[in-house]
Each structure stands twice: as C-alpha cells, then as structure tokens.
C-alpha cells in the first residue's frame, strides 16, 4: 500500500503523461448524457423477476421434515399418535 502511494505521488509528478492517458480514455469513452433514459418502461421486467422468484424453504423446515421422517421410520407405531395430534 505504501509503495502504491509512493507510485501515486511519483505519477502525479509525471503529469503530462498522466493527463495524456486520461484524455485518451475520455476520447475513447464519451460521457453519458445527463438526460439519458431507458427506451421502454422497465416495470414489466421487474414484475417478471418478482413473479419468477422461487419459494425458498428455510433449512430448519427441511431439518424438521427430515426428523419427522426419521422418527416415523424408527417408531412406525407413533404415526397414528402423531396424526391424532395434528
């Protein structure tokens, strides 16, 4: 980091060269107009993304379901009791 800072100071001493590369870059990439606007209404695109959002099941729901399946496999006779309390 310190070396980079030293380079940075050294670079500012070489101002003309530094300004040249900035000018060349600005010439190659013109500034974006202040009044640039999208060519269409983007709201339908946002809605499509919102509709596409998958339903996320939290990990603890999966863990709970797994635990219940394991319990049912280990103690099948507990299934009617479990269903009774549902």
């Amino acid at each position, binding site marked *: 980091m310190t070396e980079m800072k030293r380079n940075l100071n050294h670079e500012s001493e070489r101002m003309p060269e530094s300004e040249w590369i900035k000018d*060349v870059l600005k*010439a190659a990439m013109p500034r*974006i107009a202040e009044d640039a606007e*999208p060519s*269409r209404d983007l*709201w339908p695109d946002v809605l499509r*993304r919102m509709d596409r959002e998958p339903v996320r099941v939290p990990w603890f729901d999966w863990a709970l379901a797994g635990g219940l399946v394991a319990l049912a496999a280990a103690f099948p006779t507990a299934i009617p009791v479990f269903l009774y309390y549902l």
Partner: protein
Amino acid sequence: MDRFRHGDADAFEALFREQQATVFRWILRIVRDAGTAEDLTAEAFWRIYRAHARFDAARGFEPWARRIATHVALDWLRARKPESEMTPELEAKLTAGVASNPGVQAEIRVKTAEAFTRLPPKLRVAAVLAVVEEQPHRVVAELLGITVTAVKLRVFRALRLLRKDLEQQGIRP
C-alpha cells in the same frame, strides 16, 4: 418510504417510477451499453425489492439504490468475457468520431476502448466513474464501499495498466 420498507408493492412501484431513470443512467455509466443497462436496471430494482427490509429511510433511497445498482453492474462486468465487450456498434461509433475529443485518432480510440475492457472490473468501475464521468472520489468510494485512498489507487492502477497496454501496441504520448 415506510410502506416500502414493509414490503408494500404499490409503494415500491411509486419509487421505481420516480427513480428508474436515475438508476438506469448510473448503470449505463458503468456498462456503457443501453440495452444491457435496461436489463440491469430491472435486475437492480428486483434486488432493491428483495432487500426492502434492510432499507434505512434516514440514509435516503437514492444513495442506497445507487449502491445496489453499482454492485449489479460490477457483477455483470465480472461475469463478462473481456473480448466480447467491443460490439461492432461501439467500434463503428468510435471510428466515426462520435467520441468527445476529435483530436485523438479513431484508431487510438478503438484500441483504448478495447484495452479498457481488458482491465479488471473493479479498476474499470473506479476509472470510468472518476475519470470519464468525473464523479468525486468521495462519491465513488461510498458507492463501492471503499476508502477515498483506495479509489485513488484503483484509478492510478487502471490508468497505469491502460498506458502499458497501449504502449505495447505502439501507442505513446
């Protein structure tokens, strides 16, 4: 703002209508392609909606939205292959002299734009915002979540790499 923070879709749509042009322009400044900027604007607003619960009204919607938009654009730059970024349309524009400085030859403009696409995305974003779009370093730092010194270093490194690349192609001051 409070309704948006609680996930109200109507409040979100109202904010979208108010801010879509601002977010679009910001993304366009980074990705330099209108079609891509439109897609990424929709993506940014989708991320904004998903993050509604984290929105802090005291800090304002626009800076928060700009920060998310910057990261969406940066993700896109990272996912792109450098060689696929110089579209024939952009090359034609540069060759035709649409660029801001007619004193710089068309060939140099094209080569510079190509060399710029070969820079690491995080250096490109800093350089394009600070040098091309002339945004204050403080603003760029806030958007990228880094210090002002880090922004200056990134700009410095971007310009140095760009100059080296051009020198290798025989282009010198």
